[in-house]
């Protein structure tokens, strides 16, 4: 059992990456870059789960990461298909151009 790197450091890194992902989702207008920022947020949560799983000796965290990755793959397929369908209709991927639902 080596204690080279405290659990803190992984959690701090995960918090920073999650905030970077959030800024990306809120700031960008390109739908694909927004999608990539969501993947950034998902991966930061994966890092937290794996860090706790390793430090607590509980493998459930890594199993949960396995399922999060599967769900992220499914979300990638469906989300990109939606972006494709929107692009066919509107010829743009910038999310501020989609405003026909505004009242």
């Amino acid at each position, binding site marked *: 059992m080596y204690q080279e790197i405290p659990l803190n450091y992984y959690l*701090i890194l995960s918090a920073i990456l999650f905030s970077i992902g959030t800024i990306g989702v*809120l700031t960008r207008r390109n739908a694909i870059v927004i999608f990539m920022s969501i993947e950034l947020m998902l991966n930061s949560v*994966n890092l937290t789960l794996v860090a706790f*799983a390793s430090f607590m000796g509980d*493998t459930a965290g890594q199993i949960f990461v*396995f399922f999060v990755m599967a769900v992220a793959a*499914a979300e990638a397929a*469906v989300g990109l298909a939606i972006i494709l369908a929107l692009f066919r209709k509107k010829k743009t991927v910038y999310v501020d151009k989609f405003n026909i639902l505004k009242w």
Partner: protein
Amino acid sequence: MSVTFIFFAITAILAIASGIITISSKNPVVSAISLIFHFFMLAGLYLTLQAQFIAVIQILVYAGAIMVLVVFVIMLLNIGKENYREEIYSFRKAAALLLGPVLALLLLSIFMVNPSSDNGIVETINYNGINYTAGSVELIADVLYTDYLFPFEAIAILLIAAILGAVVLAKRNLH
């Protein structure tokens, strides 16, 4: 300053840097490649946590499948650089850039716990009476196929639904 710590420091700084490049680049292809690099850095971090299976699966699934799909879509839609300069300084961007660090500070205040009872990474886990190396494929398989069998089968149904949804959404209407 052990080798592990230096490796962790370099990997973490590169992960943060590639994350910032992902969200801030004007060219979506640069964002995608930076995100692929970020996933490789995260796989390195998982290796420092003795999570060998998750590290390899991260590279295979995220960098190898999801990002390939994203790059396909970027190339298919032929998206150029973001040159729509009308909205550089907007209230939404200013609010996000101000509140993002606030979110970071909130999360950091939760996560800066005192690790006084921390014994480091657990090396060997005893599961069902057998000693496994932590994070190995055997341990993940034993836990996944015994305790978490139902979510495993449910994930299979979810993936089928996702495939069908993606095909239906993306195909052209032939009338």
